[in-house]
């Protein structure tokens, strides 16, 4: 072939040296860029306080006063996972913990041994700022103390399905949902992978076992093949939003409030809490904050937990987290008029006790799994 081809040859050793040089410099530069500084580390899930107007500056806004008071840098480490994944990471790091505080472990997750193993009980001096009923619903042993709470319920889009065509939506029962038309319009989350999905399963178990005195498994056998089970809330919401045949979603009771707050119009999202014999029911999820066992800065961590229960943090919960603050007497934005409130429903947690859930959870999940996959 042509001479030109041979003219441009470089010594391979030069190429190797150049390559090694480029790699070394870029790796070193990157390493310096991300080199960690000593801080109080708070592990939490990915969407913690991420729903507000200024998610980029929220940490400074909420925790800035604490940082200045104690002269410490607080880093909110949002792990790219949910609370269950946060616990897995704490388990993996149990030999050499780097985190001081964990936020997001809820009233079901704390029943599982690994979540208790990685946290250390701590009773904040200002725990009286939180209603006892939340403390007891979450963890009477105080491995975690309440940070916020929410009600898991079904929501639907008024433009796609409404009470004129489906009057049963006003007082929706699980029996109504066995109608294939409604069942195939419902998207829920996989209870094996997602906390709202698990809350929905517990809702259904509580209603069947405690209110109707029926075998809970019969309902799942009836809706199987129609109901759409997505791996997580994000996937479920996306499916509900993009697929016109999916009209109902298992989600949080604050959804219409969020819709009102972001669009400033009467929300298209409506609530359909489960109905039985004259009242509506919902499952309450309480999310907690706790001390990481053997964390590097326990004293500071305790002060931080105390701080999180005060109104200076709690008043930010509603609009940035779209959950209810656990603290007493925190005023809520007018948008929350559209949310499902605690006094509007009977709480199913009171029917299904902590010890009952702890004893049966894995068997229930196995049964659910077996029904769905065979």
């Amino acid at each position, binding site marked *: *072939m042509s001479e030109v*081809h*041979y003219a441009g040859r470089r010594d*391979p050793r030069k*190429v190797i040296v150049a390559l090694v040089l480029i*790699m070394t410099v*870029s*790796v070193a530069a*990157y390493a310096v860029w*991300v*080199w*960690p500084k000593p801080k109080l*580390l708070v592990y939490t899930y990915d*969407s913690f306080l*991420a*729903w507000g107007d200024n*998610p*980029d500056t929220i940490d400074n806004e909420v925790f800035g006063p604490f940082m200045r008071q104690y002269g410490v840098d607080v880093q909110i*480490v*949002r*792990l*790219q*996972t949910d609370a*269950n*994944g946060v616990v*897995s*990471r704490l*388990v*993996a*790091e149990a*030999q*050499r913990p*780097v985190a001081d505080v964990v936020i997001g472990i809820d009233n079901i997750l704390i029943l*599982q041994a*690994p979540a208790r193993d990685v946290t250390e009980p701590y009773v904040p001096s200002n725990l009286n700022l939180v209603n006892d009923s939340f403390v007891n619903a979450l963890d009477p042993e105080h491995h975690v103390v309440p940070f916020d709470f929410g009600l898991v319920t079904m929501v639907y889009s008024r433009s796609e399905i409404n009470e004129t065509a489906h009057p049963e939506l006003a007082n929706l029962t699980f029996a109504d949902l066995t109608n294939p038309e409604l069942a195939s319009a419902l998207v829920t989350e*996989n209870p*094996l*992978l997602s906390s709202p999905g698990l809350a929905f399963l517990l809702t259904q178990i509580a209603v069947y076992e405690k209110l109707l005195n029926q075998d809970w498994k019969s309902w799942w056998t009836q809706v*199987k093949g129609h*109901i*759409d*089970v*997505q*791996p997580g809330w*994000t*996937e479920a*919401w*996306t*499916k509900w939003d*993009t*697929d*016109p*045949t999916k009209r109902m979603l298992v989600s949080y009771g604050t959804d219409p409030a969020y819709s009102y707050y972001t*669009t400033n119009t009467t929300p298209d999202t409506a609530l359909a809490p489960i109905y039985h014999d004259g009242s509506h029911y919902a499952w309450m999820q309480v999310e907690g904050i706790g001390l990481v066992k053997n964390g590097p800065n326990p004293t500071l961590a305790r002060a931080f937990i105390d701080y999180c229960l005060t109104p200076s943090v709690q008043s930010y919960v509603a609009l940035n987290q779209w959950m209810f603050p656990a603290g007493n007497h925190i005023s809520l934005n007018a948008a929350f008029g559209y949310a499902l409130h605690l006094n509007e429903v009977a709480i199913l947690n009171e029917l299904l006790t902590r010890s009952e859930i702890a004893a049966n959870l*894995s068997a229930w999940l196995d049964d659910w*799994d*077996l029904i*769905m*996959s*065979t």
Partner: protein
Amino acid sequence: MKAQALANHLILYFPLILLACFLVYPVCAVIAGGIAAGFRTSPLQVLTSPITLQALLFSAYQAALSTLLAVGLGLPGAYLLARLRFRGSSIVRAAMVVPFVLPPIVVVVGFLQMFGSFGFLDSLAMAVLGSQTSVLNLATGTTGIVLAHAFYNVPLVVLMVSSSLERLNPDVEESAEILGASPIRKMQRIVLPHILPALLASATLTYLFCFTSFPIVLSLGGGAYSTLEVRIWYAFRGFDYSEASTLALVQILITVALAFSYFRLGRSRSYDASPTSSIKQFSIGELRGRYVVLALAYVALLLVLVAGPIVAVVRAAIYDPVARVYTLEGFGSLISTGLGGGMVPLINSVFYAGISTVLAVILGVPLAYANRNQNSTMSSISSIATFLPLGVSAITLAYGLMLSVVVPLGLSVNPWPAIVLAQTMIGLPFSARSIEVALRNIDPALLDQADLLGASRLQRLFFVEIPLLAPGILVGAVFAFAMAIGEMSATLFIALPQNVTLAVAIYQNLSVRKFVQAGAASLVLVVVCLVAFLAIERMTGRRLGGVL
């Protein structure tokens, strides 16, 4: 001479040593730890459970269907891409790999809009039938899972096979034609045997990829289907580490068995390496009428399958589904600085995937040579090790890397090296296999000539072997990059906020309903990958190399 031989061995087996340290050891540690922690569910219970058996059968069954479909759809594409000379062929090549890098949730959304109820195909069918209700939903159940898997893997088959076809000797073809062979016979006797190694390699990679599939199965299967990988994930989430370990071990054993049969199959055939050269090409104008129609029909089919989700991504970047308006707001967040801001995920993605790709190629070359080694024990071990990263469940690897690399080395607050390691591992099967296939097509006589002319080992490698391996390195690097930049499972588990990659950022934006930002990030990811693929193509040089 002894030192030379030792150095050779060291270079040859260096990738294996790394695999042992960063793949085998962490995974063994997890499995041993899981089993030592005592049994909440005993291995016997796990193995005899009907659910495990069902997951195993479903994994095997859907992977087989998906592989058949991907190979069936991919072969004509490979033939066209190798044979046809046309402008923009490198862009087509690069665009095909894009689906590989998109996070599953984006693929699923694009897929629903193409194949789901009231999607593109359904609307078409409804219009034809004059129906008001949905008539065609291909995005659900086994059909949906298999189609989505094919969508992911067709490009793999196309690119691996076409890069092998490029080395088909035109003289052999001509001789066959002169001797009166019919096109079918020519295909049977000449083309097929030539591409068989590439076909086998891409089919095995596809099979493993689908066998261990996890998010697609969960999302499109609607909770009713599970693969072994799904079962591992369930067990892990339930903190049942002994069950997770047992299942992970089963999956590894299956991978090893598959890799071993691949190795035996490859060994049992001997190839007469013909003189190295490059295939005879046509321009589009030279095609005859019937073939033009066939080619166009094929391209249309491929467009529906592969381009649909990409179009959906572009639309998602500029259309806000909540406010129902077109906006460029999504791109605004990409320019913002600071941790979690737009540029950080971009820099992270490019950095991790870039380093991982270089490593995967550097490790892939000796691994490919080791696979072709005369010593059959060593070559079988290295050949099996090559597939291993695909069979190790991502969560097991991520957890293992955390337990036995990140935490002991004190990297917990700065774990990016573990992300690079995980991404390198996952790209290695692709780079090593495609380089190995290219290696098979090199004529040993050429190397002897180089030796005779007095080339040093380094000169021979750089001026003779690497240019000849260029098509294989190109395809390998492209897929290693794609696997790395699209990797989610391990990255999600290991990453701290400062390590967020684009794929992770897309998912995060979706989870707080920032749809345009997610769309914009997806588009950036697509563009970054296109640029990277074209750059890789440029760097590996004109595909024929300089020596011919």
